[in-house]
């Protein structure tokens, strides 16, 4: 084992492999930081370039893009409230609030450090617990996926802040939008209105760019005259204080755990993991009201979780040969082209290559963390650009980025409509997070529930009696009921309080 470990390290410790890794991390940072470009797109576009180099060099570049894009996706989420990748949606909730408070530097610093914590924790899991985690993920059938999706949807109330009813409505609208396209079981067209562009459903990324990017731009355009003066641009410190770091440590670690586990489940990635981790951190916090308004713990939990999903997805990919997310699906293809078959036999026959991957992930994490910390202040200078220039840039990148996904103008129209919806929702003070949650989880919930019911021959009780499903359903019921129970207990306590306390 030690010999394989040293061989794995030696294979990556040469200037060519490290050069490819550095190039990949830098390109990944660009893909992640530009709204409309995603880690999946970066890995897909650059995979052909790796066919002419060794497996280590090619994989170094692709893993660099993966590890660079996810933390970099948090940069626009923090600075301009536009998530760079779907995984960084929850990052914008507290990150942008911190920027508005003049703490953009600290938010970027926390993004870099918590992302590193998430990545390193999940890499450690990959190194030490690959098989148990992958075996657990393998026990997931349609019923368990339905339970997981239902648990995610039940978090809608939690991520709605003090606008629970409005948040639940936004979430149900997201679920409704997810119905567009062919029925997942019977291929019956629903809400396509005769347009073939809608048969595949509504693309998620353009909707996300519209809701968060264009919607924010329109909102700022509408309010620009009511502002007495331009907001003071403050970047502040980048590295958190020791007290802040201590306060965030628990949230980072729990986020890393959630992200790793969710990432290990096929088809569930950092976008779901970060929302669950954020809500978990909010529940565990004594200062729940601060979440969504600039909480460092909320930011740390979401950043850590979306990055930890990388290690989780890689664990499932390497041990079982099953892609944990879209990026790892492309990585499997790249490995196969190099003659490497991911799966249990890889651990038996080519251990040194597995260790090489682990070391590549660690080095990529170190590189992107350094870029994140050293580049935080220069990056935050984007806030000193006159707002109209920034708005024009966001609109153009959003438009071209949405089009580039499928070379489809319909995606750009979807982005514009979502932008208008985002503007109206902001004006009506309806939270946007639940809508995204519904849109992501809707198809997963519907298709898996119906598959599970076919397997159980329509028996709902049989479906819910499965242990993992029962745990998810109980957690989902509690997550909806607990805030209500707590508020009832609070009001009952106030009613029975001595008069002198009044």
């Amino acid at each position, binding site marked *: 084992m030690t010999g394989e470990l040293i061989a794995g390290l030696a294979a990556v410790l040469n200037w060519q492999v490290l050069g490819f890794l550095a190039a990949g991390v830098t390109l990944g940072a660009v893909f992640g930081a530009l709204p409309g470009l995603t880690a999946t797109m970066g890995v897909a576009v650059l995979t052909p370039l790796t066919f002419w180099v060794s497996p280590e060099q090619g994989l170094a570049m692709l893993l660099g893009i993966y590890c660079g894009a996810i933390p970099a996706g948090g940069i626009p989420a923090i600075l301009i409230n536009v998530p760079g990748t779907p995984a960084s949606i929850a990052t914008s909730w507290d990150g942008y609030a911190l920027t508005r408070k003049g703490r953009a530097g600290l938010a970027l610093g926390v993004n870099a450090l918590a992302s590193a914590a998430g990545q390193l924790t999940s890499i450690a899991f990959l190194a030490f617990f690959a098989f148990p985690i992958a075996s657990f993920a393998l026990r997931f059938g349609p019923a368990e996926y339905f339970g997981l999706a239902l648990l995610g949807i039940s978090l809608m109330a939690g991520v709605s802040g003090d606008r629970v009813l409005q948040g639940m*409505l936004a979430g149900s609208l997201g679920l409704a939008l997810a119905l567009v396209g062919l029925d997942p079981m019977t291929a019956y067209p629903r809400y396509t209105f005769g347009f073939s562009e809608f048969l595949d459903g509504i693309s998620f990324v353009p909707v996300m760019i519209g809701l968060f990017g264009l919607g924010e731009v*329109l909102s700022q*355009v509408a309010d620009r*005259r*009511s502002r007495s003066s331009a907001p003071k641009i403050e970047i502040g410190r980048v590295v958190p204080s020791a007290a802040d770091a201590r306060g965030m440590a628990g949230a980072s670690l729990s986020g890393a755990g959630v992200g790793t586990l969710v990432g290990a489940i096929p088809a569930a990635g950092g976008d779901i993991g970060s929302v669950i981790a954020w809500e978990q951190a909010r529940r565990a916090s004594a200062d729940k009201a601060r979440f969504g308004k600039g909480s460092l713990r909320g930011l740390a939990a979401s950043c850590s979780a979306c990055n930890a999903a990388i290690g989780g997805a890689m664990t499932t990919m390497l041990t079982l040969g099953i892609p944990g997310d879209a990026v790892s699906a492309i990585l499997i293809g790249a490995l196969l082209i190099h003659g490497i078959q991911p799966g249990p036999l890889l651990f038996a026959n080519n251990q040194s290559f597995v260790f090489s991957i682990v070391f590549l992930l660690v080095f990529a994490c170190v590189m992107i963390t350094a870029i994140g910390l050293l580049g935080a202040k220069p990056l935050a200078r984007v806030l000193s650009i006159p707002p109209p*220039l920034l708005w024009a*840039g966001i609109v153009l990148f959003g*438009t*071209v980025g949405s089009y580039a996904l499928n070379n489809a103008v319909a995606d750009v129209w979807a982005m514009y409509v979502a932008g*208008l919806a985002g503007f109206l929702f902001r004006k009506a003070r309806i939270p946007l997070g639940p809508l995204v949650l519904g849109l992501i989880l809707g198809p997963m919930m519907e298709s898996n529930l119906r598959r599970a019911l076919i397997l159980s021959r329509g028996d709902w009780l049989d479906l819910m009696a499965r242990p993992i499903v029962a745990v998810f359903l109980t957690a989902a019921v509690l997550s909806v009921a607990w805030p209500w129970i707590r508020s009832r207990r609070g009001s009952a306590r106030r009613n029975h309080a001595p008069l002198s306390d009044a």
Partner: protein
Amino acid sequence: MAREDVVAGGAFLLAGLGLVFSGTRFPAGVGGLPGAGFFPQAIGTMMAVLAAALTLRGLRSAPTTAAAGTDLRAVAVVGALLCGYLALWGSGFFLVRTAVFLVLVLRFLGQRWLPSLAYAAALVAFVHLAFEAGLNVSLE
């Protein structure tokens, strides 16, 4: 009356009822298994119930003050420019078309001619380089 809640609740109520009604036109399923119409009806029912609750709460609430200073005309103009730009998508001349669009937006938002022209040219060149040359996406 909280006007924003009543308006939002009313809109969601209509959408929910629309989902329930449209869901009845999809196959209902066979042998106790839900069909294509099950989820639209379930989601529509949930939406309608929540929307009714929001509307009722809005009607009972104290009046809220409308946000002052919202420039809806500016939103309409930017929206119209965006729609015009997209309507011309595929007609060629990406560089010129996009630069003109950006300059119009920037001028409307109060930027001076020279910075608007310079910024639009730089941005269009960068986007063209990144997407056309780098990612092989045809923007024409």
